[in-house]
């Protein structure tokens, strides 16, 4: 053991990350606007799509067509919009700087945020699943494992993109961009509605969006029990590009 190690007054890395994860999760859950975005709006979307015929032809029953898209929306709410806004304001107030002077460090901060995103996402998924089952949802059981995988991959991709925006522009701009993106992606980004419903000339562009890859993959899994390789490739590419740019461009203060 080096002399430095024996002097250390820091608790172990896993313990630091667990502590920070808990802290960040509580921060997210105690924010009212965040809860509206994470829980209320997705549940409204679920009811809206179940009791209308907006998703006609996507699946035999509306509810089965609606749930995968609503889960994709939950990922974007938490990993991208909520987490991005939180990080943007943390940066403004010097909170990132303060934590990076503690044993937590930058790596601990980022892992803490990842834990918070995954925890809040897990809560969302459980809530949506309960409501959906009560509404008569019958998922394709073969699709459960692929769906979980895509939810995780989607969370990683959108966390990277959220951090990229939060770390490069002013927090007010992050707020505007991530909220606007949430609305646009939900409406026409392939999240709630499959892009086969979009005008043909727009499809190739929209198909390249990570939101479309996530929405399509979840629908393929939960409606047909399929695993979409194309979506994996798209999401991994977006996650890689987003992470690379965030690491290069993120300004800590």
């Amino acid at each position, binding site marked *: 053991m080096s002399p*430095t*190690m024996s*002097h*250390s*007054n*820091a*608790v172990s*890395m896993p313990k*630091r990350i667990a*502590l920070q994860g808990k*802290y960040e999760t509580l*921060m997210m859950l*105690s*924010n009212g606007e965040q809860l509206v975005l994470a829980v209320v709006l997705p549940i409204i979307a679920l009811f809206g799509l179940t009791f209308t015929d907006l998703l006609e032809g996507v699946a035999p029953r509306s509810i089965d067509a609606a749930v995968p898209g609503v889960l994709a929306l939950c990922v974007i709410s938490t990993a991208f919009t909520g987490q991005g806004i939180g990080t943007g*304001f*943390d940066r403004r*107030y*010097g*909170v*990132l*700087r*303060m*934590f*990076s*002077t*503690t*044993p*937590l*460090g*930058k*790596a*601990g901060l980022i892992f803490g945020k990842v834990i918070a995103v995954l925890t809040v996402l897990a809560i969302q998924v459980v809530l949506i699943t309960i409501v959906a089952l009560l509404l008569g949802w019958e998922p394709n059981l073969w699709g459960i494992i692929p769906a979980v995988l895509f939810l995780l991959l989607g969370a990683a991709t959108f966390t990277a993109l959220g951090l990229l925006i939060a770390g490069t522009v002013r927090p007010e701009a992050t707020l505007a961009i991530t909220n606007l993106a949430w609305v646009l992606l939900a409406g026409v980004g392939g999240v709630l509605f499959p892009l086969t419903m979009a005008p043909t000339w727009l499809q190739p562009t929209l198909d390249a969006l990570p939101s479309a890859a996530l929405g399509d993959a979840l629908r393929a899994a939960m409606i047909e029990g399929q695993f979409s390789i194309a979506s994996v490739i798209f999401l991994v590419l977006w996650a890689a590009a987003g992470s690379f740019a965030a690491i290069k461009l993120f300004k*800590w*203060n």
Partner: protein
Amino acid sequence: MVSSVTPSLIISELSKDLGPVPALNNRMLRVLDSVSLQALPGQVTTLLGSNGAGKSTTLACAQGLLRPEGGTIELLGQDPFGDNPDLRSRVGVMLQDGGLPPSMRPIPLLRHVAGMYKKPIDIDALITRLDLESFGSRTIRRLSGGQKQRVALALALAGDPEVLFLDEPSAGLDPQSRQVVFDLISEQRDLGKAIVLTTHLMDDAQRLSDYVYIIDKGRTVAQGTVTELTTLAAAEHENRPVNFGATPSLDLPQPPAGLHLSETAPGEYHLTGVSSPEHLNWLTSWWAREGILPTHMNLQARSLEDVFLEFAQKEETV
């Protein structure tokens, strides 16, 4: 500074550029130019200078938050840059803007940060000491500047650090909390911690410091103990003004060469140029001759402020 103790912080020849600055045709601005300093355990080392002199930039470099263009920094014998949790666990930092999350309450935040350390300081005692309970129910967003300062200081102390960096620790504090904060700092010093603080307040520097570096325009212009700086530095033109109060509008006698006597306000007199006991003798003989018994008098010692102004003026004329 001659000492056999290993310094906790050694900064040599530090230089830092910021910019590009639009006002300078987008050239870089050199904010630190060859700053060297060290801080010993069991001492308060103060960086004294006006706003914008480069004090906070020096601290940010020493803490590893800002990468300098040149020079070396050794913090507890290690390189402060990069994620180094073991080093961070031994160093406490109070940032100038505090870096406190506005939606948190102070005590849960303090307990959270303390959880990162194997042996944190006695948190309950610290809470009582800094009276954090008195505003514990409020979120940080709703605290006054002074209250935020106390929370930020508590966070810096949470890990019972060996080195404590305090950027303007007394800013925004009322006299009472200022005393509490100063007592805490002195205690930490007596426990053998190395304390590095910045201030633009001469009074703070004079009260707290064991060793002072005067920083002006990104350079160290003078250094020494408070006593060294106030007595030795400019002994050749030592000048201790005398102030006294007496009946207004006295007929002032002509003082010896080099002295100047004036009435600065009705009944307030000021004698400058006093540099030998003979001069005091001259003053008191005049009082005896005229039957003047002053209401008060004092011999003004050279303050750190005089030293600071003197060096700042020197800089101007260079």
